[in-house]
């Protein structure tokens, strides 16, 4: 599904540069649920951004679903993002003047899907996260957990191969966090490949595999026994 070899990335800071990723090797198979952990500055977000084709590596190889991701034009990158990847952000990043339904339909709009079909599909996904009754509401009328569920529906709408989550529970209380995690686990059970960045130990333990980063290198890569989130709900 995802193959990364000797990935390097550095950011210029003033005259010098900060070497954030110092040779990352990572393979993720289809159906996996991986947590990337590390303290701040360990490079976990940078890695996620490169995997999400939001950022580009300086050197190394990145192959996504058999396609080498290298020197893409902005246009091509946009198409890949739309087709292969679904994003879930810590701060939800819903478009605040669009209704829940419109937010979910947005990736389909960029796919060029017809309006009616798009709305039906968006409604289907919204129903899946249990918010069909909130379709016409604006993000400001939703609670944090509901917002994140809309964001998940949006990430799923284009039926991506890989779901990328950047601290998906970072802005939520414990109960809602478990709620969201239970949902993400369910998605994984259905076969979706999921990659998430988190710094919370209990959230990471709800994944099937934990990759620990420190100072730009992988310190530890272990499979864990998944803790089911439902038991807390």
């Amino acid at each position, binding site marked *: 599904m995802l193959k990364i070899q000797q990935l390097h990335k550095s950011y210029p800071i003033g005259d010098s540069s900060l070497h954030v990723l110092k040779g990352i090797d990572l393979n993720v198979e289809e159906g996996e649920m991986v947590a990337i952990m590390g303290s701040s500055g360990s490079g976990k977000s940078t890695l996620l*951004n490169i995997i*999400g084709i*939001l*950022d580009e590596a300086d050197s190394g190889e990145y192959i996504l679903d058999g396609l080498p991701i290298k020197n893409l034009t*902005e*246009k091509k990158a*946009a*198409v890949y*993002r*739309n*087709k292969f990847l679904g*994003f879930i*952000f810590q*701060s939800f*990043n819903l*478009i*605040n*003047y*669009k209704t829940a339904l*419109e937010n979910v339909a*947005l*990736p389909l*709009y*960029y*796919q060029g899907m017809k*309006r009616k079909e798009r709305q039906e599909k968006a409604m289907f996904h919204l129903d899946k996260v249990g918010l069909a009754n909130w379709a016409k509401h604006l993000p400001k009328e939703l609670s944090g957990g509901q917002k994140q569920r809309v964001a998940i529906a*949006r990430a799923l709408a*284009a039926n991506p191969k890989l779901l990328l989550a950047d601290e998906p529970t970072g802005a939520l209380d414990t109960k809602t966090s478990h709620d969201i995690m239970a949902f993400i686990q369910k998605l994984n059970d259905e076969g979706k490949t999921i990659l998430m960045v988190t710094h919370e130990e209990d959230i990471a333990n709800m994944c099937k595999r934990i990759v620990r980063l420190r100072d730009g290198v992988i310190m530890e890569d272990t499979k864990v026994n998944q803790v089911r989130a439902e038991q807390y709900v």
Partner: protein
Amino acid sequence: MFRFLFDRDTWQEVLDSLSKNKLRSILTMVGVWWGILLLIGLLGSARGLENSFNRLFGDFATNSVFVWGQRTGKPFKGFQENRRVRLTLTDAKKIEENVEGIEFVLPRSQQSVTITKDFLTGSFQVAGDYPLLDQLQKKKLTHGRFINQNDIDDRKKIAVISDGAYEQLFKKDEDAIGAYIEVNGINFKVVGVFERGNVNMGPSTDVHIPFTTFQQIFNRGDRIGWMMITGKPDYSIKQIEDDAKLLLKNLNDIHPEDKRAFGSFNLGKEFKKMTGFLTGMQFLTWFVGIATLIAGVFAIGNILLITVKERTKEIGVRRALGATPFEIKRQIVVEAVFITLIAGIFGIITGGWILILLDHFFGQGDEAAIVNASVSIAVVFIALVILVILGTLIGLIPAFKATSVKPIEALREE
């Protein structure tokens, strides 16, 4: 390429993002709205002024020159200088026959005379005239008629008096037509009353009497006061003036270089100055209007630029969801053009209202300062096309700005 313009979603996106921030959208529009409003208002007013000038001079043969005799400035053929020059009917006839491009030559004479009616008396300018005068300088007759050919042929003692003379000589509401006034001790029957307009070309006249009568009662013989020469539309009145003067000098034994012998007033030249002024004003109007418009469009560009900065994160999200940079740019350009167009159309409509108001307050009646203030459809169309072009160009700036930020940086923005 332009199919997206007919796509409902494109407009949904535009309307969404504009209605999201109504105040911002409205403020943005004000600049362009004001520019178009000014352009339409000014152009319409300029046109109204031009129309009113045209109406004032419309009854007037503008392609004409007045010529009168003065005193010679140079000795010639045994005559001393400072000799009095007097034009005659023969001169007028010769000019009409010999100078190219002439339409009419109208001889006129005028004298200041005391006129008495019953016990009222006053000093008035009496002129001897031909019916042709009414054709060259339309007389606004409130009562009766002007001099006709019969009056000329029979040297009738009739008079056409001005409203001013009527007020001085007649009691209020007294019927002037058919009444007699005493000019130089001779009774004249009043046959018409005319109203003096705002614009008077040549010396003003209180009372018109038939030319032949005038010449007789004042013992003028064939000497005339001055003549009004009218040129055909496509002849230069300046050339006619020069030719006529040269001919007159020949006929009256005056040195060809003598500049003092004849006085003249070239109406055509003066009129040209006036129309030149109008053209200048129209140019100024366009200049001011377009400049304001450009300023307005720049204001839109400016505000869109700020907006794009505000929306950096939104744009980042859109790109993460698969929007290509082109789609983002297109979106912003369409927003810019749309906002300019709407503001422009509002400006045109309100500009039209301004013109209606102008017409209502200043455009009524015969002496209106502004007549039929209006703007042609072509001008409106040109203004709209300019708006669309400017809107597109100005929209490109924020559009490129929006996509110059990497999606990752856009998303990181808090």
